[in-house]
């Protein structure tokens, strides 16, 4: 077998000194570094490599870039299998494994092609009109079959094993596209002193220059590109990114870039990197795309963009056929004929729909012996897996012409500027009759355009415009512009496109969107059925969707719709372009933020101790707190009930480091607290703590906790774990915006102090066994006292406060000593059978005591609802005072905090259950309130809960029902006081 039979003996920018082995459909092939998968397959004579989306028609390579609609392959295998990869942009690498998709058994013989036989029934929107019986359930089954028959490749279902990164980029000028205009723009901006990023989606910078045989300043364009790139690389203020796509443009000049870090998808390091780039100015030099022409069977393998045929010849050294016919409506395709002839290939004819062509072009063809047929068009193509001949017709469709033998048709329907990024920043594309294409409209001041994307197709214009725009962008970014010398690009022939939107129909379908098998007839149908708006057309026919985002199809489709509507194309307009411009792997959006790095995990200073004791952890915001400490295979219920009982009977210790701790300092601190809390704070003595509740401005309870006074102007506030951040923000807002005159500073010291609560009737004895320099007797250190002592010579703060209802102390130690202090307390408590307890027991204890927390203070609750209206000092002002007196908030019919007890003690309650009078869960039943917290109470000997109930105080002792329709569960409960243990508070105080 001849190796690479379609590889030209010389030429191209590939490295012929090295071979690259790759696999396609389980067969080994060879290519060269510098090849794409498409060029390597074509070099090896593989011209039928795909099947189409809907009709399973054979497809080959159509383009040489990201506009490719047909050559979609699955690359990689196993968990790295990535479907729908455009072979035209996939760099070839050693060991690449690829396969065809959407066909069986092979792309050359595909049983799915039976779809072509019933294609008249598969017109646009056919699935909207059929498969309606027997209703939605039927459709759910049909959909699976349709998706299996159509569609593209299948992604791996295994987790993506590759590494993706994200990073932030910053510059003064971003240049998108490294063709002639982009290279000049980057050079000019850099010359002016700007920090420049130049980003190009190809592996090799140069854009169209790599595909052409231009001379710049008398040297081959590729050599000029190499020199330019080298100069930019040596500038430390310039960053060059190749193989990277700017896929989205967002507000404030923030752009999303995906960088494919290596050609090899199996690199051990990073596969792709997401850049979020923030820049002052943007130069879009995004080039243009050659449009196809619409004629019958224009999707056959061998029908290609003229520009792509030129690229494979000039850049990759690959012939696309043995007899090429060029079909065009403009001048640019003549370069294809000339370049092919110059490399020794046969060009059977240049068929031009225009009647008038520049004499110099005709002379060049004549010199090369290439036949020219003017005023004609290709009407139809014969051949299925490869082209046999082209049937011509006069371009006005009036007269059938000859048939010409060929195996490749290089076509050019004109050039469409790439305006997608322009559109994303609000520039509405304008239709240019001159170019028969959309060009960028007015853009934000920070955005500039240069080169072919503006409709400037001549090389010299691109070079000049790039230099000028690069300087302009640098000046706009605040730099003094330095004039960049513009090289000579020589004379260039402008395209001079004469629109030809559709050739007279032949025998086969005239495809407009090759990727989604949308034909001209589908557009006619959409028009006939009233889908005449471009947005409706897109959604009805799926035109312009999928991986190529309609790059090659949009303008032709809009022109056809305009003809049908008998309106100018400008009146039809375009659809809206949105990110991503090209397919982006989801993995790159996640980057390293997956698994253990998905979000931070906050650890207390005692975390290692909890882990060593086998604590089961519970997520509480970003913290993971010990939920319970199972002993000997205990269940969660067994564990927390044991811990709860032990705390009530003896003593327990719990890690409360996650509680918010806010230091408040300054001479106006008492006044600040007095305005913040509903109760009075002006006379709190030093060495004392006080419970307080603060409201939001709208009178709803924000948070509760204790604040202790450690000095004249020195307070320490504790908040709930959940509200640590919001309360701190609230206080900062008040001090910075509302009362800037107060000399008060607040600082989060949550992290400075490791916190632990020691609770139970033997808590005092336990602490007395380890705390020095502080008298903990009831007389010297009564309930709500605070003071400083030492544990094993470590200074600690001790607060005699209780969340459990038992005698209890909170001990705060500098965090690096947290675990040591904890261990010292545990050692001291061993003789009292101290138990560590977790959040589950913490919750059980506070529910038994009737203490509220986030479950109750849920942003809808007032002071009156939780029975604390009496705390509010009516003689002073405080945040929320005015609005807490609104009629609705003072409504006596508002549900109030209540205790609830299962009538059957063994029957658990459900948080969120609705309280109702009757055991029926019928719709429209009168809702009296809800259950907010539940637990099993060893103290009560049954299941209890807290909740909110209308007329709760008046109904104590009555029985109602807690209904939980989601689980079809209803529990009879007794209404009781929310405090289930030690209502007098004696245990805490004595």
């Amino acid at each position: 077998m001849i190796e690479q039979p379609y590889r030209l003996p010389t030429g191209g920018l590939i490295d012929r000194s090295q071979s690259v082995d790759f696999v396609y459909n389980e067969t080994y092939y060879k290519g060269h570094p510098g090849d794409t998968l498409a060029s390597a397959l074509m070099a090896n004579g593989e011209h039928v490599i795909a099947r189409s989306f809907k009709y399973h028609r054979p497809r080959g390579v159509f383009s040489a870039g990201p506009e490719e609609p047909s050559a979609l392959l699955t690359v990689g295998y196993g968990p790295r299998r990535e479907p729908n990869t455009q072979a035209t942009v996939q760099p070839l690498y050693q060991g690449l494994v690829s396969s065809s998709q959407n066909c069986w058994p092979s792309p050359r013989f595909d049983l799915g092609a039976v779809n072509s036989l019933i294609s008249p029934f598969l017109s646009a929107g056919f699935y909207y009109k059929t498969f309606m019986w027997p209703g939605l359930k039927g459709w759910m089954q049909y959909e699976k079959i349709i998706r299996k028959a159509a569609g593209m490749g299948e992604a791996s279902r295994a987790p993506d094993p590759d590494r993706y990164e994200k990073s932030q980029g910053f510059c003064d000028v971003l240049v998108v596209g490294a063709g002639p205009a982009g290279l000049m723009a980057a050079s000019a901006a850099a010359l002016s002193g700007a920090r420049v990023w130049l980003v190009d989606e190809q592996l090799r910078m140069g854009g169209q220059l790599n595909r052409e045989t231009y001379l710049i300043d008398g040297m081959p364009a590729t050599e000029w590109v190499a020199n330019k790139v080298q100069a930019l690389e040596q500038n430390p203020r310039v960053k060059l990114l190749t193989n990277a796509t700017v896929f989205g443009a967002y507000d404030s000049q923030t752009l999303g870039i995906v960088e494919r870090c290596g050609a090899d998808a199996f690199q051990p390091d990073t596969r792709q990197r997401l850049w979020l780039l923030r820049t002052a100015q943007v130069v879009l030099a995004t080039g243009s795309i050659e449009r196809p022409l619409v004629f019958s069977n224009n999707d056959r393998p061998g029908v290609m963009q003229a520009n792509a045929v030129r690229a494979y010849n000039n850049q990759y050294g690959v012939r696309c056929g043995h007899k090429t016919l060029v079909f065009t409506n403009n001048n640019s395709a003549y370069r294809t004929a000339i370049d092919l002839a110059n490399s020794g290939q046969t060009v059977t004819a240049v068929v031009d729909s225009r009647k008038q062509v520049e004499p110099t072009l005709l002379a060049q063809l004549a010199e090369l012996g290439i036949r020219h047929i003017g005023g004609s068009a290709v009407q139809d193509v014969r051949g299925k897996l490869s082209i046999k001949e082209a049937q011509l017709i006069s371009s006005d469709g009036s007269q059938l012409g000859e048939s010409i033998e060929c195996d490749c048709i290089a076509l050019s329907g004109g050039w469409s500027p790439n305006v997608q990024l322009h559109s994303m920043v609000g520039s509405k594309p304008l239709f240019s009759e001159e170019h028969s294409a959309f060009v960028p409209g007015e853009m934000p001041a920070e955005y500039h355009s240069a080169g072919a994307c503006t409709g400037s197709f001549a090389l010299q214009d691109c070079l000049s415009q790039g230099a000028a725009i690069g300087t302009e962008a640098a000046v706009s970014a605040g730099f003094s512009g330095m004039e960049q010398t513009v090289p000579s690009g020589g004379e260039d022939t402008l395209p001079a496109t004469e629109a030809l939107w559709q050739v007279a129909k032949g025998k086969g379908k005239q495809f407009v969107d090759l990727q989604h098998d949308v034909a001209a007839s589908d557009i006619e149908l959409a028009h006939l059925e009233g889908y005449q708006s471009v947005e409706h057309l897109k959604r009805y026919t799926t035109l312009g969707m999928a991986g190529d985002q309609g790059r090659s199809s949009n303008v032709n489709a809009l022109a056809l719709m305009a003809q049908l509507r008998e309106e100018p194309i400008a009146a039809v307009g375009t659809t809206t372009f949105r990110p991503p411009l090209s397919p982006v792997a989801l993995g790159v959006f996640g980057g390293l933020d997956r698994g253990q790095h998905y979000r931070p995990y906050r650890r207390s200073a005692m975390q290692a101790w909890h882990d060593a004791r086998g604590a089961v952890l519970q997520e509480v915001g970003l913290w993971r707190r010990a939920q319970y400490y199972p002993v000997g295979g205990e269940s969660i219920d067994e564990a927390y009930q044991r811990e709860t009982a032990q705390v009530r009977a003896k003593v327990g210790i719990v890690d409360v480091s996650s509680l918010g701790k806010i230091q408040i300092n300054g001479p106006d601190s008492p006044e600040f607290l007095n305005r913040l809390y509903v109760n009075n704070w002006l006379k709190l003595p030093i060495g004392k703590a006080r419970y307080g509740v603060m409201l939001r401005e709208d009178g709803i309870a924000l948070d509760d906790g204790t604040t202790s006074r450690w000095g004249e102007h020195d307070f320490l506030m504790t908040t709930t774990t959940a509200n640590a951040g919001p309360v701190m923000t609230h206080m900062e807002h008040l001090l910075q915006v509302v009362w800037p005159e107060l000399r008060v500073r607040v600082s989060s010291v949550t992290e400075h102090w490791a916190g632990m609560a020691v609770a139970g009737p033997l808590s005092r004895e336990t602490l007395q066994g380890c705390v020095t320099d502080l008298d903990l007797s009831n007389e010297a250190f009564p309930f709500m006292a605070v003071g400083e002592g030492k544990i094993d010579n470590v200074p600690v703060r001790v607060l005699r406060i209780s969340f459990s209802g038992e005698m209890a102390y909170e001990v705060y130690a500098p965090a690096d000593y947290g675990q040591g202090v904890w261990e010292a307390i545990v050692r001291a408590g061993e003789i009292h059978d101290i138990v560590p307890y977790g959040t589950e027991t913490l919750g059980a204890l506070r529910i038994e005591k009737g203490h509220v927390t986030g479950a109750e203070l849920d942003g809808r609750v007032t002071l009156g609802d939780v029975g604390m209206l009496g705390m509010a000092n009516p003689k002073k002002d405080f945040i929320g005072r005015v609005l807490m007196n609104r009629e609705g908030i003072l409504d006596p019919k508002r549900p109030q905090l209540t205790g609830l007890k299962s009538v059957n003690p063994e029957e658990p309650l459900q948080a969120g259950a609705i309280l109702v009078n009757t055991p029926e869960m019928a719709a429209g039943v009168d809702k009296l309130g809800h259950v907010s917290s539940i637990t099993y109470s060893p103290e009560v000997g049954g299941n209890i809960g807290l909740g909110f109930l209308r007329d709760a105080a008046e109904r104590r002792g009555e029985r109602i029902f807690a209904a939980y329709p989601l689980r079809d569960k209803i529990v009879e409960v007794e209404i009781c006081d929310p405090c289930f243990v030690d209502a007098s508070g004696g245990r805490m105080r004595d």
Partner: protein
Amino acid sequence: MIKAKTALGAMASVQTGDGLQLREKRNRGLWQIDAWASSDESVRDKLVTSSGMRITGERGAAVAHGEERLLWAGPARYWWITARSNVTPAEFAAGLQSKEGCVIDMGHSRSVISLKGSAAQAVLQSGIAVDLEASVFKPGQIIASGLTHHTPINLHRLDDEHFELYVYRSYAQHTLEWLLEVAKPYGVDWDARG
């Protein structure tokens, strides 16, 4: 006396290269000095005298002297980083009247991770949405930002390839794990001994 355990002391050492050297700065005290708007200048003057480090009140100002640091931490707010055993900050606090400002010991609130090496900036830039280019974020400056949008941090640049990252203690282990992961391609040297 109980032995201090830092947040990162138990993290296993890693040695895969020298692109990024990571160390935990231990036994550092952090004293937060707050002035009132009217007393900022006078408090700063006293602070400069007491610490021996000359800092301006400009946003992002940072001074390093040996292992001591004086850092701008917000309007009329400074951090004095010094050895925990140094009694000077406590003396300074005792001498400051409440009408001038206040001093808080926050020495255990932050873990400080030193990042040195050619990859330091690139690794940090992966998670911080602030321009870390040395001509923009210069040696001798400090910023407050977020790491991966989740973790509040302060970042002090000492020279082109040397940073100190101040992170809340509870986030420290996660942050170090993240840094080790991001730095993998560059080669990393983390010595748990400090």
